[in-house]
């Protein structure tokens, strides 16, 4: 195997167990007992191609030997999205680096660049800023998330309010199909004539948007970029309760300010945990905070600030002194500082209609009290009417039983969100039981058909994104198991005295 791979990638191949081991892990801790019960995550080899041609050869080679292929970018996801289920070959994209000169589309006067899939969003943004441009939006994991990784996920994050999902900012995509063809696909609504679709695997542009490396491999994208804004303002507003905060978020979405770039909510529990670690001291305890980031033309920003000031007052909130918001903004990639006081966090992330945000938060607080669980919440506004909500709660990976019973609480969180129109944001492997909460039956079938058409030999990232690959993850079986485990949770927490959410 190694020999064959070396012929394609030279020394950029490893089969050394020491080197392979990290590729069986992502951001989340999952007890080994569960991992090995359900998956075979250790790859046989990892390769680091530097071109589409190499990837094409790798895919053709893997196809011959029926070897599953999993693509990995920054490995900053948490649901085994980039971890092999059935061992096989991992393609690490981190040597696909760099971006082209900025092009100006004469037709619509928009600027864009071709950027390689392995570059991180922060590196791209830093590089563009040297030339007076910037990315339109980025994930809050921008220092680690790669271009290909975020495009293959939901694509929502900082800057999504004005610019939408990253999927909306891609004009064309270069990649390799599941049969090893190199293709360039243009955005269907832009210029279908330029499309050189794939003949053998029927890969289409949308097959590469948010499909977790299951239908093709992205090597490069043509991305819209923006000019560095004339002015930035970062406000930090605090409110006394979730209702006013929710109203403010809806208002911000509804006002359609040209310069509204990002809105970030932090719960009092989130702030309290940060403060315990020595951060965020400017924020009074017990308050609900909204960081409101404005970017754009000077007068647009100034006007929006004036309106926002008034509305914060109307809702009984307070704007903290200038500088506090700027500091929060500077720390936007540092949400994990929370782990200094709460290591070993578990999480549920979902999209939720903003109008239901306050109701969600209130019910969450009750659920937390009832189950003796400290729920720490933060959220981004990702469209005028949708928020991406992250709920974290402490566990202890050093205690297997506690950790397993705690996992069941995630299921309660998704249920709570679902009742209010929420959907799990990510599928990957571990969320396949919740597929029914994300897509209706028709959409699930359409997705299955597209997968079949694009990846006829089911080689790419098997086990992710579609029907649960294992009976244990079947939604009924899994749901029942979660309910049963959940029943034991209060007792286990009581015995361990660790469930006080301290």
């Amino acid at each position: 195997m190694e020999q064959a791979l070396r012929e394609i990638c030279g020394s950029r191949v490893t089969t050394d167990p020491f080197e392979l081991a990290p590729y069986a892990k992502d951001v989340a801790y999952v007890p080994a007992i569960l991992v090995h019960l359900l998956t075979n995550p250790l790859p046989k080899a990892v390769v680091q191609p530097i071109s589409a041609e190499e990837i094409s050869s790798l895919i053709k080679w893997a196809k011959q030997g029926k070897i599953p292929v999993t693509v990995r970018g920054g490995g900053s996801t948490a649901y085994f999205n980039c971890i092999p289920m059935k061992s096989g070959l991992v393609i690490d994209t981190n040597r696909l680096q760099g971006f082209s000169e900025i092009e100006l589309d004469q037709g619509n006067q928009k600027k864009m660049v071709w950027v390689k899939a392995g570059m991180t969003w922060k590196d791209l943004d830093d590089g563009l800023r040297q030339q007076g441009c910037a990315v339109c939006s980025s994930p809050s994991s921008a220092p680690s998330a790669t271009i290909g990784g975020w495009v293959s996920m939901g694509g929502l994050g900082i800057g999504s309010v004005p610019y939408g999902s990253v999927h909306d900012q891609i004009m064309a995509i270069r990649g390799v199909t599941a049969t090893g063809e190199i293709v360039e696909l243009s955005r269907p609504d832009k210029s279908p004539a330029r499309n050189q679709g794939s003949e053998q695997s029927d890969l289409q542009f949308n097959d590469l948007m948010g499909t977790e490396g299951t239908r093709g491999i992205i090597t490069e994208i043509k991305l819209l970029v923006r000019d560095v804004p004339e002015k930035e303002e970062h406000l930090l507003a605090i409110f006394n309760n979730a209702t006013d905060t929710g109203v403010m978020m809806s208002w911000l979405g509804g006002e359609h300010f040209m310069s509204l770039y990002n809105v970030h909510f932090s719960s009092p529990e989130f702030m309290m945990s940060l403060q315990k670690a020595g951060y965020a001291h400017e924020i009074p305890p017990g308050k609900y905070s909204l960081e409101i980031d404005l970017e754009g033309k000077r007068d647009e920003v100034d006007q929006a600030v004036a309106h926002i000031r008034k509305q914060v007052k109307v809702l009984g909130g307070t704007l903290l002194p200038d500088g506090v918001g700027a500091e929060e903004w500077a720390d936007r990639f540092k949400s994990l500082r929370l782990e200094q006081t709460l290591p070993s966090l578990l999480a549920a992330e979902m999209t939720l209609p903003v109008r239901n945000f306050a109701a969600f938060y209130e019910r969450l607080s009750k659920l937390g009290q009832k189950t003796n669980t400290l729920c720490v919440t933060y959220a981004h506004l990702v469209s005028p009417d949708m928020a991406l909500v992250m709920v974290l709660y402490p566990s202890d990976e050093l205690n297997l039983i506690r950790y397993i019973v705690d996992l069941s609480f995630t299921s309660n969180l998704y249920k709570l969100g679902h009742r209010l129109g929420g959907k799990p944001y990510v599928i990957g492997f571990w969320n396949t039981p919740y597929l029914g909460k994300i897509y209706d039956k028709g959409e699930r079938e359409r997705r299955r058909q597209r997968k079949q058409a694009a990846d006829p030999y089911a080689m790419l990232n098997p086990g992710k994104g579609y029907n649960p690959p294992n009976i244990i993850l079947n939604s009924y079986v899994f749901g029942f198991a979660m309910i049963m485990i959940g029943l034991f949770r209060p007792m286990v927490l009581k015995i361990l005295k660790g469930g006080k959410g301290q």
Partner: protein
Amino acid sequence: MKTIEELREQIAKTSYICGSCGSCRSVCPVYREIGWESSAPRRKIALAKEVFLKKKEKQATGQYAQRLQECTLCGKCAEICAAGIKTRELWLNLREDLRARGMEHQNLTQMALQVKTTHNISTFPNENRLDWVDDLDEVEVEVSKAGSEVAYFVGCVSSFYPMSAGISQSIVSLLDRANVNYTVLGSEEWCCGFPLLASGNSQQVLELAKHNVEKVRALGVKTLITGCASCYHTWTHEYPTILGEDLGFEVLHATQYLAGLIRTKQLEAGNIDETVTYHDPCDLGRNSGIYDEPRELLQAMEGVNFVEMPHRREMADCCGGGGNLAAVDKELSQAIAVKRVREAVATGATILTSACQQCVQTLQMAARQEKLPLEVLDVTELLWRSLEE
């Protein structure tokens, strides 16, 4: 000083905080060269977690030890860490543990023996510390001069390596030009201990710290200046902790002191018609917070067209020469240096400056190896040249 058990407990606690997000990965100069996940800071922490928190001692393999020592201690991972982990401190603690396990790289063991014997990192006797003075015609450098206001701690590299002698010569020439009442320690200057700290050998540093501090105190100076960024960091950040007490005198980097002289017009900069850029030494910039004074000196020189590199200040890239990396893997260290000099050339600069003898040496070698049209100098060398020309 902490016991090894206390250090191990601290490592365990710190490793538990890491969320494995990987923010530290693409900024790490070592990962960027090696490319495999095993070389990324997050993976090293994950292994530390296995060894120290989960007590899986078998994970402490030779490959683990190698990866821990393939690190320049540049601190860029700490700067970006999404969880606010002081990773540089963690790497030092892990190296202390490696040493306690007998897993330290043999070149580092050798270096520790060397320092024990000669009190410096070279093979020369410490009596040769002032050989660089011989080439100075107009400046007289007095050793342990009573009544001096300032002591200049030269550092091993510019004391013993002819390639770096220009730095110490420039610094004393500038002090002389500004009529500063200064002195040097001569053979009473011992290695500051930074290379030992970086190899997890804080025990041996205690003796060096005690000696150096005692000798400077005996001079009764108000200020100690260092030309080396790592010496500066050791004097200001490590000695007070190691000794558990205030030093009793001010410690400044030479660029800080000289910037002060220029501000008070005790010294005037000259003229240099060149495009110049500046490399922030990790131990002076990110790890000590000094960014402005070296730039102030460069901008004080008439004719200098100062240009910045894209990676600068807090996010400056490492020169590759830190953390004893060259002793562990010389090629890796050079590869990192080559990237940095290329970045400098891309700015259009003809002179790359820094404020650290180690950085200057490493970058000079890389520029030569790549045959780049780039001269590498210490800021103090350029400042002195501006006055000479």
